[in-house]
């Protein structure tokens, strides 16, 4: 009799516990994995030896920063270990590149004709990056993307590791077409010149806040490449801060569609960040379609230079005050995910 009572008590306790546990955020039932903490050693690609699909299942949490991938994996974001600064370091890579005829970056080149205000705020302040083989320009990639239904587009991405590129969520996942069916990255592309070749995507990452809720607050993602081009072209550092004070110059550099096809353009503004919110940084730096996914970066320290603080995503139209362009701010949760993705073992 006592045994029966004990059994009933245990069942009751378990039911109570599971009913009080947080509900699953995602609507879809997908396999889940958990990545191990950032304590692994470096493997031969420079990626820390971290978990992969073979990890044990875990509980899917209710955070919109819960990670999803194009091959159906889902796992919870990791917390930053206590005491660690919110900085991931930059790397110049080997820089090995073929000879390239360079033109001074400051050479004035007009954009293609036709005034289209949009996210070019006032006079167009962007200048063409002619030398795309120098760091950090070579760590920025032109992305050619295909979604189902014949949707072909372009974005910008920036290396954060040997085989990992950070970009906007909508560059890897379209809210109507789903995951991109193919993405090809061309680091340092300069028009028809692709000095480092290209690499196709192996796996795509974003978060449920974007793929399920379609919230622009969570519009960020990443592309894991099949090759380790990052070891050659280098990668950006990135960081997060709780303070809303962003002083000094900031730069947005990428591949706008209103210029010669697949050419890199840049603009720096000081003060670079004009307004701040929890999820976004707002700036008067000119951008255009095609620049989604571009790094919003500055020189933070010797170990984080360039140092990304946001991922460019929207033009003026998304600003509630219709003043500035904006990027998804690298908050702590974004930082955690980018860092986890960076240290995934390369394919």
């Amino acid at each position, binding site marked *: 009799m*006592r045994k029966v009572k004990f059994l009933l008590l*245990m069942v009751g*306790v378990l039911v109570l*516990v599971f009913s*009080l546990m947080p509900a699953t955020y995602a609507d879809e039932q997908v396999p889940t994995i958990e990545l191990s903490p950032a304590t692994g050693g470096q493997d031969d690609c420079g990626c820390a030896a971290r978990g992969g699909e073979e990890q044990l299942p875990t*509980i899917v*949490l209710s*955070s919109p*920063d819960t990670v999803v991938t194009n091959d159906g994996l889902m796992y*919870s*974001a990791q*917390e930053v270990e206590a005491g660690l600064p919110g900085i991931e370091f930059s790397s110049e890579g080997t820089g090995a590149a073929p000879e390239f005829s360079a033109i001074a970056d400051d050479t004035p080149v007009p954009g*293609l*004709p*036709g005034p*289209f205000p*949009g*996210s070019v705020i006032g006079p167009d302040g962007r200048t063409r990056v002619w030398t795309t083989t120098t760091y950090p320009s070579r760590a920025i990639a032109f992305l050619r*993307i295909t979604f189902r*239904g*014949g*949707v*072909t*587009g*372009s974005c910008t991405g920036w290396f954060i590791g040997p085989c990992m590129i950070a970009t*906007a969520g*909508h560059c890897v996942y*379209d*809210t*109507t*077409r789903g995951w991109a069916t193919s993405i090809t990255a061309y680091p340092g592309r300069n028009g028809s010149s692709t000095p480092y070749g290209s690499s196709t995507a192996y796996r795509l990452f974003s978060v449920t806040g974007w793929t399920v*809720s*379609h*919230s*622009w*607050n969570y519009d960020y993602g990443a592309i894991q490449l099949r090759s380790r081009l990052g070891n050659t072209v280098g990668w950006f550092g990135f960081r997060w801060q*709780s303070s*809303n004070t962003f002083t000094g110059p900031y730069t947005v550099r990428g591949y706008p*569609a*209103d210029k010669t*096809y*697949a050419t890199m353009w840049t603009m720096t503004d000081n003060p670079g960040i004009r307004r*701040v*919110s*929890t999820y*976004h940084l707002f700036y008067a730096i000119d*951008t255009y*379609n*095609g*620049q*989604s996914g571009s790094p919003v970066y500055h020189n933070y320290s010797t170990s984080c230079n360039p140092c990304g603080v946001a991922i*460019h*995503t*929207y*033009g003026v*139209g*998304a600003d*509630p005050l219709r003043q500035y362009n904006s990027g998804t701010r690298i908050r*702590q*949760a974004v930082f955690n995910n980018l860092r986890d993705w960076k240290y995934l073992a390369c394919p």
Partner: protein
Amino acid sequence: MSGKGYNLQSSLDRRCMMTRCAWRGTVIVVGVLSVGLFLAGCRLVRGEKDQPVRSDASEPTTIVSQGGEVRGHITDADGKPLAEVGVAVPEGTVAIPERAAITNEAGEYVWPLPAGTFTIAVHKEGYVSQSAKVTVHEGETVTLDFVLVRQQ
């Protein structure tokens, strides 16, 4: 014999006590594990939440919605399809992320857009850029073709 019987009873008593202890232990362990699981879940959820830096009450939380699409064919004045034309949406009644569309080898482009009115702009080196306004309704496909003229 009696000693053996006594020992057997004693042994049974001990075994019974051990069983009770095991059950109690199980209950305690399960209870602790349950509470621990619950607290761990709460802690993780708290950990996932963003740093409360500033209220975003004024910001819309969702920009993109389901809608229709704009598709078209871009050619030069001779009717030849133009590939790698940059197609953009610089303005609209709904904010669109700054991805660009690109024409394929057949000069075709497709852009899924939410319901609203937008300016579609097309750009190609060596050609005069063009733009046109288009209204997209829910579930509809709007066709918008362009014929680009070479720059003088």
